[in-house]
């Protein structure tokens, strides 16, 4: 029932967006009372400290290319809601995933007031003083409504600095149902066996710390924030034997299937689906829609499988990230920007994005909704978050050494004994902590 009204509203709005493109949204909201009625789902909306900023407020918002249209619609709605208090003009500007951090580090004053970013750059941003802290009622709002991992991802030094936007910035198993059965997808052995049976490849980007950390995390070598100095990566206590045998289990298994195992960029998963050469792979959530496009009904998604370590099936643990929305600390209108950030991350907007963009929510209610449960891709990735280490407080020095580790582990031309493995784990940890 809600969905229908929403859809009509969305269509109307998107028409308006197309007509006006970049022009102010404040102008479109002529009569406030009827408008609040139209977007009745936010009827009880009452912005905090609204008297602080008035007149014409100009904001700039950064969001990824894929989300431009929905972002514009949502900003439009926000302008309408706020039209009783102020005239707001919002300029939505496309920005790549990694750009906000690098641009704000170069010059925060030209940055957007409100911007989306992946949680791995939050340390850089906070360190550079680019994010406005989330305090008081806003903080409660964030903690109450979002899943724990996403709140953690927005936290630096026990302070929250951003508003969780999605809960899906990670990867899981993507497979061709005509090659791998649902049952086989539960164990890594099964996946590889199934691929081999039909001579299809299995793709994983081991040469990248983001994926290769699986080898360490599954074996219990997980990260645990920073040391006292605030930059040196801290590792949780681990058992070297378990760690070694797990990493060796990965190596031996992949080595057994080395003619079908491909250590290559993630784009090769979907490419392979298109050309029919790949049976399964470990792929990121941002590529799910491409996988669906390539395989149609045969597209299968599942949490990362188990791997057999010394006879016990062990669940693979990965790194799980979130997308966040932050408020620029040098914004001219911090109060309105905070309102906008809250608005963009609320339940409705997250639901919209789940429908329009296939983005997994961080909002608890949306995550539990049937909308998500019925989508195999989204539910798999959200399920995956339970078997993962949140991408929180990861040192910038983490990625390169772990990529090296992953790369060495799946280099089957070299001899690699248990002792080498131990040595490598030690060196990798030391290297992450160096500098």
């Amino acid at each position: 029932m809600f969905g229908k009204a929403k859809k009509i509203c969305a269509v109307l709005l998107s028409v308006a967006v197309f007509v006006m493109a970049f022009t102010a949204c404040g102008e479109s909201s002529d009569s406030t009372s009827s408008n609040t009625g139209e977007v009745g789902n936010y009827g009880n909306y009452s912005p905090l400290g609204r008297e602080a900023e008035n007149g014409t407020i100009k904001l700039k918002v950064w969001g990824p290319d894929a989300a431009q249209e929905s972002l514009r619609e949502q900003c439009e709605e926000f302008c309408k809601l706020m039209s009783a208090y102020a005239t707001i003009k919002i300029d939505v500007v496309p920005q790549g995933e990694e750009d906000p951090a690098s641009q704000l580090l170069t010059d925060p004053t030209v940055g957007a007031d409100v911007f989306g970013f992946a949680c791995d750059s939050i340390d850089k941003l906070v360190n550079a003083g680019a994010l406005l802290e989330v305090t008081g009622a806003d903080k409660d709002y964030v903690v109450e409504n979002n899943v724990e991992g996403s709140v953690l991802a927005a936290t630096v030094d026990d302070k929250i600095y951003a508003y969780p936007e999605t809960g899906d910035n990670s990867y899981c198993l993507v497979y061709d149902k005509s090659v791998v059965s649902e049952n086989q997808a539960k164990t890594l052995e099964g996946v590889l066996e199934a691929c081999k049976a039909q001579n299809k490849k299995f793709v994983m980007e081991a040469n990248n710390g983001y994926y290769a950390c699986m080898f360490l995390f599954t074996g219990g070598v997980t990260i645990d924030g920073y040391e006292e100095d605030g930059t040196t990566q801290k590792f949780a206590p681990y058992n070297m034997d378990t760690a070694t045998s797990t990493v060796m289990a990965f190596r031996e298994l992949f080595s057994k299937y080395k003619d079908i195992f491909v250590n290559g960029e993630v784009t090769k998963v979907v490419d392979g689906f298109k050309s029919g050469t790949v049976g399964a792979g470990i792929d990121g959530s941002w590529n799910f829609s491409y996988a669906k496009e390539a395989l149609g009904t045969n597209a299968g998604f599942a949490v990362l499988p188990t791997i057999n370590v010394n006879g016990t099936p062990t669940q693979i643990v990965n790194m799980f990230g979130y997308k966040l929305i932050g408020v620029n600390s040098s914004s001219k209108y911090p109060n309105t920007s905070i309102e906008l950030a809250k608005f963009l991350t609320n339940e409705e907007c997250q639901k919209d994005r789940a429908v329009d963009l296939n983005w997994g929510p961080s909002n608890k209610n949306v995550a539990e909704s049937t909308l998500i449960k019925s989508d195999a891709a989204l539910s798999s990735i959200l399920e995956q978050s339970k078997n993962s280490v949140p991408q929180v407080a990861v040192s910038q020095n983490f990625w390169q050494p772990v990529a090296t580790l992953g790369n060495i582990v799946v280099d089957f031309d070299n001899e690699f004994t248990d002792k080498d493995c131990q040595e490598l784990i030690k060196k990798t940890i030391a290297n992450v902590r160096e500098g």
Partner: protein
Amino acid sequence: MTFIEYQALTPSQKASYKIKEFFSLLPGRFKSFFAAIGKFFKNLGLKFVGGCKGYGSRFTKGDFATKLSYIVMGFGNFTRGQVGKGIAFLAAEILYISYLAGFGLKWFDKFDTLGTELTHQVIDEVTGRPKSVMGDNSMLILLYGTLTILLTLVFIAVYIANTKAAYEAEQSVKAGKKNLTLKEELQEFLDGKYHVTMLSLPVLLISVFTILPLVFMILIAFTNYDKQHTPPGQLFTWVGLDTFRDVFKVTEGASKGYTFWELTKWTVVWAIFATFSNYIIGMIIALMINKKSIKFKSLWRTLFVITIAVPQFVSLLLMNQILQDDGVVNVIRGYMGLAPISFFNSTALVARVTVIIINMWVGVPYTILQTTGILMNIPEDLYESARIDGATPVVQFFQITLPYMIFVTTPYLIQSFVGNINNFNVIYLLTGGGPNKNPNLYQAGETDLLVTWLFKLTMNSNDYNTAAAVGILVFIVCATLSLITFNMSKSSRNEEEFS
């Protein structure tokens, strides 16, 4: 050997004599290079002292107008018929002072600490929400402080010139001579002082957009600007030589020092191979194309040269794609029944050989263009005498062509050697530094050159100070190398030969 003896030699003997002389002079050149640097600084010091001396004596000797020019710049010239010159000096003074007052002083003021006030957030009373209070930005203080210092140096030079001009104008009036009018003086800039006209604009542009940023970067190496101290959120400050100590310190396991030495070794190996492989292969192809009996010369040349026209980053991204594990090269190998090769991610050796070969694809066409003309100019009698001695083409190439070319094109070779040390594009776009197989390298892969490491240090791990220090070291090596070879090369010493 006397001149007459030299003249009596055959052309090939002459050439080999010259080449021998060239290399035997090398060590001496090194010595004289450092002597020249010493001399440079000595002269600079003397000049400065000289300037100061004249400064005082002119003041005591000069009349009132000249004395007043020490405060109001250009006054002396103004009162002695050189209105334009006087106004120019005065304008310089006013500009400088207003720069200082409006902009420069405020930044220079904090140059010693690079800022003390941290940017922080406070709770706004009206909204109950945080807002940001801007503090100091160390980076801007460093940059604009440096700008102020450089401008001050320039101003001092202008100021001294002003006192000199005032004094000279006074002297020439006393001697009953007429001072040059503005028009005459300007005309002088089209003839006698034409070098000033030609050089001032480029020098200005280079000073502002090359030298100033360079000084800024050099200074960063002496600060603690790293990932813990990133402005505007954090402040950084001076730490002296600590950063350099880090770069040279080799410890057990992964360290910056170990990485620095490993990458230096590879950078040198790369630069040598990349330079000479391009050079030799390019020359051989050029010789083949230009052999008299070969037809379709322009077609052959076009085949190679066309690759230059494709922007380099495109052709490198393209090569990266073609050489992937599932790229077209491996597809073709598959058709021929060969196992695929992982060009970029098997062993360091394979990846290194691959980048050197791809670099040939990129660079050889330039050598072909560059050397064609010179190859045609090698005196034919050199070859003739060799042929009479029964030398094969291969022997001829290594005994005549190659030495002759190296001798004649040294500046070009040095340029490309230095260019290869700094060859960012090939490595960054082709391998991205990979393969990552050495767990002891700090933020680097096995084909990373010092420049690409430097880039990763700034972009990935934000170790700006380390990057700056490495940059300085690379620069010192490149600069020394090229200055020595350039100044001993024929083209520099015999500049006037063609006049």
